[in-house]
């Protein structure tokens, strides 16, 4: 299992809470960008992948034509015959029927829509470029383009958000044909507009926790399974590409700020579009190759994010060997005593009460 991640660092505008790498002033560089990205892909020509994920930024901003060029370019360079899943992230303001139909025709069978909320007030205060109507139209367009795997990104803790508005958003979405939800809590990060100027009606930490728990409850009543800390899906609709991250799998990331994990080594491209365009291969940073015991600790931490699947010591043993996982077994065992983890046979699972405070558990797991 190996994933291919393509980063599209362009957005029509920067959302007030966003600290991902994206640019909104240099949209004229998109054509050049596709060429350079394919040049980076050339350096790994021939690799095979099981999942493809176009993320951003806003991949839908490319438009149908560039998207086609990109996907065909990737197919020429990589072995994508056994793709089990491919996803494109889209934002409502740039995901017209044309783009969605093209994506579907190109074999991208899963779409993840950056809806965040169906409340126009919340969207506006967060600097989103779309409104409720556009969000619902995008779902309709996706359905009519043939999509059956549709995910929605939902933000918990938007300015002015209440349990009522969140509940309304989720009920409408589940009724509209969504089968996967990524629910991220808003955090005010340095360098964002919210950091410089925090809105007065931003829900506090405790309020956010309540909103999150409420969202999970609603989605569960609609048949969703809480399979990862921030992700819920109808059974069988989990995101395979992301599951691979959390199972310690391999992936290649192309584009500025994209992270990779190949043969046990993690690295990422610098978040710098200009330098990337000059030479996409010379700007890697943070290369890291952990020894087995640390690597196993890291994977244990990742696997515990999978609330249902949990951390299976049998699998860890097969992968790393008994010596390397000694600590990985001992540390979670201690946490079972503190009731933040439960153990069932060979499997450790994060207890529901600790989902939002998992960091306190993870720091004791990584060793």
């Amino acid at each position, binding site marked *: 299992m190996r994933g291919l*991640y393509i980063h599209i660092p362009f957005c029509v505008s920067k959302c007030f809470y966003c600290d*991902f790498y994206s640019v909104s002033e240099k949209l004229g560089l998109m054509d050049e960008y596709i060429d350079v990205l394919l040049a980076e892909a050339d350096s790994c020509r021939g690799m095979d992948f099981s999942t493809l994920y176009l993320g951003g930024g806003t991949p839908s901003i490319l438009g149908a034509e560039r998207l086609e060029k990109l996907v065909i370019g990737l197919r020429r360079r990589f072995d994508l015959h056994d793709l089990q899943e491919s996803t494109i992230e889209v934002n409502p303001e740039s995901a017209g029927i044309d783009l969605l139909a093209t994506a579907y025709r190109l074999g991208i069978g899963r779409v993840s829509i950056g809806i965040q909320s169906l409340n126009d007030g919340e969207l506006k205060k967060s600097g989103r470029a779309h409104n409720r109507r556009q969000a619902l139209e995008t779902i309709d367009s996706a359905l009519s383009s043939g999509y059956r795997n549709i995910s929605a990104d939902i933000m918990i803790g938007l300015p002015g958000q209440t349990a009522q508005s969140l509940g309304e958003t989720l009920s409408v979405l589940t009724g509209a044909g969504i089968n996967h939800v990524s629910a991220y809590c808003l*955090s005010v990060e340095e360098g964002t507009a919210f950091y410089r100027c925090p809105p007065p009606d931003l829900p506090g930490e*405790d309020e956010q926790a309540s909103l999150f728990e409420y969202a999970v409850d609603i989605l569960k009543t609609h048949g969703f399974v809480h399979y990862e800390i921030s992700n819920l899906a109808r059974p069988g609709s989990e995101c395979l590409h992301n599951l691979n991250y959390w199972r310690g799998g391999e992936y290649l990331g192309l584009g500025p700020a994209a992270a990779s994990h190949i043969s046990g080594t993690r690295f990422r491209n610098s978040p710098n579009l200009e330098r990337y365009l000059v030479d996409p291969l010379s700007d890697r940073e943070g290369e890291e190759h952990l020894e087995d015991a640390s690597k196993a600790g*890291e994977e244990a931490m990742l696997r515990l994010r999978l609330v249902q699947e949990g951390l299976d010591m049998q699998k860890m043993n097969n992968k790393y060997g008994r010596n390397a996982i000694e600590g990985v077994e001992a540390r979670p065992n201690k946490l079972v005593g503190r009731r933040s983890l439960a153990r069932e046979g060979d499997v450790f699972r994060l207890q529901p009460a600790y989902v939002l405070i*998992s960091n306190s558990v993870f720091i004791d797991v990584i060793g």
Partner: protein
Amino acid sequence: MNNIRNFSIIAHIDHGKSTLADRILEMTGMVRKTSMDQMLDNMDLERERGITIKAKAVRIPYRAVDGKEYILNLIDTPGHVDFSYEVSRSLKACEGAVLLVDATQGVEAQTIANANLAIDAGLKIIPVINKIDLPGAMLDDCALQLYTMLGLSIEDILHVSAKDGRGVADLLEAIVERIPSPSGEASDPLKCLIFDSFFDPYRGVIPHLRVFSGRIVAGDKIMLKSSGRIFEIEEVGYFSLGLAQSEQLQAGEVGYAVALIRNAGEIHVGDTVVAADHPEVAAVPGFRLSQSMVYCGIYPIITSDYAKLGAALDKFKLNDSSVVFEKENSAALGYGYRMGFLGMLHMEIALERLKREYEQDIIATMPSVIYRVICKDGEVLMLDNPSKFPPEGQIDRIEEPVIRTRIIVPSDYVGPCMELSDAKRGVLAGIEHPDDKRAILVYDLPLAEMITDFYDRLKSVSRGYASMDYEMNGYRTGDLVKVDILVNNGPVDALSYIAPREGAATRGRALIHKLSKTIPKHLFKIPLQAAIGSQIIAREDIFPRRKDVLAKCYGGDITRKRKLLEKQKEGKKKMKMVGFVEVPQEAFLSLMKIED
């Protein structure tokens, strides 16, 4: 001996003492220009804080305008009130002092305090106005202040810029002309003053000596007047920029002696050294053992590091014999030490050095003064640790140490400074008006108020213009109570403190509130309470943490996520476990800075 001049430079903090010393070393050819800033300040910390902690000396050969060769012994002095005893001993080793005043600041509290020490020691004073290169220089005002506040002659005043060297040549000449050469006979029995010392790991404690009479050579047997202990001299020498061995030290000279003194506790600044065969020679007057004014508990973050901390303290004491420490045991913090310091600045510096130079991960508890507790059965206890106080019912009264402080303040700020002093339980002992621009407020103030935040507050209410100096002024009865702090329903003895009964509740609330902001949220609710005896005077709860700040893990950048977790884990290690509660280091010391 006629060609020797022993002198110090004395000044209020930041008035340019170290810069002037540098310039003198440069202009006499001792060091090349720009070789190293501020030669006399050895320790990093001193440079960072811009103050000299320990006195040092340097012997400067100087050819004067009269064509003769002179030896100038510059004895550096610490510039802070915590070290006034050390200053007085350094001055005792001199015949003259250069009194430095910043032209933009004028005479300040420590200018006066230091000048008075010099006058008491009978020194010839050369008044010098420094920083004349600055645009805000007020030469006339400063001159007038030196005259009215210290009685110095205006015509004696020199003007220099230690920064660009202007006037320094004239100052060197004035040192030769005005400061008397030392008196005393080399043929008389030996008599030296110890004015400083340092520890050398190979040669033991090396005292700095001023020889008043007689001579001292290798092989001599010497006796310390205060203890009667006898040592054999192995080597003597002068202070060049390092130590320069010489054949002898004789009357009038300044230098060092090596005598394989292993224990820093043997050598006390102010002690007199005499020849072992002339023990009858009288001591230099004014000797006293340095006295700790402020105490705090120090505990290793990790309980098992207790032995390591003890070893570090032993080593530290070799370097700074003015600290005292003894074992202490806290129910909340485990095994640690009670440490005594000359004052707050001394405490801050010592703790910082323990952390930095001796690499100790420690927490320090709230500083305390020594209370005199008179029990109903007549017993008198001297207690420096609130947790050792007897139950309230057994106490007849509590007396606390008082300082006499002199605050120099521009007339415009007299009101706020008096309000502050009154609020801090000060009793006005007098107001002086040396000129129409400034007042000197003399207050008797509990030392406990001084060691919390009095100085910071004084600076803030006077917009930085007030300066102060203090000396101990006995004990006085106060209406004081012991306040206990309970974290998660358990009393934390290390957080107990003594406070005036009036306002104890207000202060308790402020403290609890601050604590609630310092202790991170846990997974369970933590009640915080302040109590006098069994009466709860303040309560606040830290509610359970319901959500991590960083719960997301997106885009496959696992390395970043792991590093954040590792950082969090490191932070956790810096916390002290008190019961089931993780209390950060800052919690203990930050509590002393409570706004009323």
